[in-house]
């Protein structure tokens, strides 16, 4: 087996939740003197081992709060694992949330620069791809107006166009294909296909089981920060659907008691 593109070894991620949102120095000092912890620990990921080869399309499923987005953040390099090792080779294009890094007072055009620069691009690289980005977004003349006038679909289209203007080694899509109209989603899927041919590793976090079945070559099932399943998409997704189903029914049952 070749060197994995993404290699997580025994990765754990811990959020320390302050009981109040932000702690003041005063409170901190009081608690420090008392020796009491003012944080609650929440382990979003525990002992995750994951090796992903180049060109794999990984579907990630799990109930809300399972740690899917935390996993994406660790792989993207936004958050450093509390324990364990993360190694990712090549460039990463993460879309963890649509509209991140946009300044809505600026025009779409100005935001193309701002956003792509935040993804680690250089100015001259952006200038070269500018026309492609504008064309792919399908925004037309809207590109010249401030983004506060954009609809959420337009924001999504621009965000996707920028993040996928260059072929990355790893593309992370966290629930981002849900918005946008049918035509745009079709074009996104086309682009994902070409990326796949070029050997890009793709991580798809989604609740859309059908899309994962169509696209992924491997599926991960996360639950309570643990890896509950990892393997062939059909098997994992079926098992996941079965496991999720009774929970949905258990709600009205409990209400009847």
């Amino acid at each position, binding site marked *: 087996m070749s060197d994995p593109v993404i290699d997580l070894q025994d990765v754990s991620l811990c959020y320390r939740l302050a009981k109040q949102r*932000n702690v003041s120095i005063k409170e901190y000092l009081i608690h420090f003197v008392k020796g009491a912890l003012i944080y609650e620990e929440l382990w979003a990921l525990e002992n995750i081992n994951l090796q992903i080869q180049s060109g794999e399309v990984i579907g990630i499923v799990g109930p809300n709060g399972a740690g899917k987005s935390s996993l994406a953040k660790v792989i993207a390099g936004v958050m450093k694992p509390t324990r364990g090792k993360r190694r990712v080779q090549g460039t990463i294009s993460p879309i963890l949330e649509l509209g991140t*890094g946009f300044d809505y007072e600026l025009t779409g055009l100005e935001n193309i620069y701002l956003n792509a620069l935040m993804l680690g691009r250089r100015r001259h690289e952006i200038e070269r791809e500018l026309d492609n980005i504008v064309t792919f977004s399908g925004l037309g003349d809207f590109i010249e107006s401030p983004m506060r006038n954009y609809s959420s679909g337009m924001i999504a289209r621009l965000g996707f166009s920028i993040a996928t203007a260059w072929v990355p080694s790893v593309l992370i899509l966290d629930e981002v294909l849900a918005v946008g109209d049918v035509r745009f989603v079709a074009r996104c899927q086309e682009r994902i296909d070409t990326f796949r041919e070029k050997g890009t590793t793709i991580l798809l976090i989604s609740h859309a089981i059908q899309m994962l079945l169509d696209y992924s070559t491997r599926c991960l099932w996360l639950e309570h920060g643990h890896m509950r399943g990892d393997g062939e998409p059909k098997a994992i997704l079926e098992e996941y659907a079965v496991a999720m189903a009774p929970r949905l029914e258990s709600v009205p049952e409990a209400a009847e008691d």
Partner: protein
Amino acid sequence: MRELYRYRDLIWTLVQRDLKVRYRRSAIGFVWTMLQPLLMLMVLHIVFSNLFRFQVRNYAVYALAGLLFWNFFQQTIVTSMNSLKANATILKKLPVPLAVFPIATVISGVVNLLFAFVPMFAILTATGHKLTWALAFLPISVLVAVIFTLGAGLILSPLAVFFSDVVELVGVVMMLLFYMTPVIYPKDIVEGTEFYWAVRFNPIRSILEVFRDPIYFGKVPPLDHQLLAGTIAVAVLAIGIVSFRQSADRIPFYI
């Protein structure tokens, strides 16, 4: 460091955005940067030259040089302190090196300071103040002030994320420092008073004097003053870099 260099285009674009957003909405744009210290100066001139009768030759230039420095120092520290919090959504979702935000705010602060130099030189010539070759030293004075301010921003911006009351605390400390620094009053009026030590050992005063010497006194600051101010600034920046690097990984968890 190498990562920051790779993101240099981003830093420059953030600076441009700061300036654009700041001036796009206001009708007279850049004039504001120049007007603000001038209006303040008018008030001070009336209060101090007439009421207190300071024995300061050309008080307008003395106070203006001080105010330009102080405005840069205070505004830049406050905005860079808030720069991480203000960009919370970005740094939770994109792997951007966090230091770009405080660095960009300091650079926009410098640009604003340079704009404010325009009316200052106008006043210098209007009041017949002697312009000397010592002004060639001014870029070094600005550099010292920038190094110090950047260091302070790097120290404070993570603290503002970790603790909710840092912003208020710094506001109070800034006010205290303003009175502890001879920005609008001459240093000799506090000499011999029981609080003189507070002014004397105030590191901001050293940095201010290095800034004001070439403008007001028309002289290059004495070498020992240069060295002291430089050492203070570099030390603060060193502490800033070390503390920022140590806390950077934890910032996304707290914001």
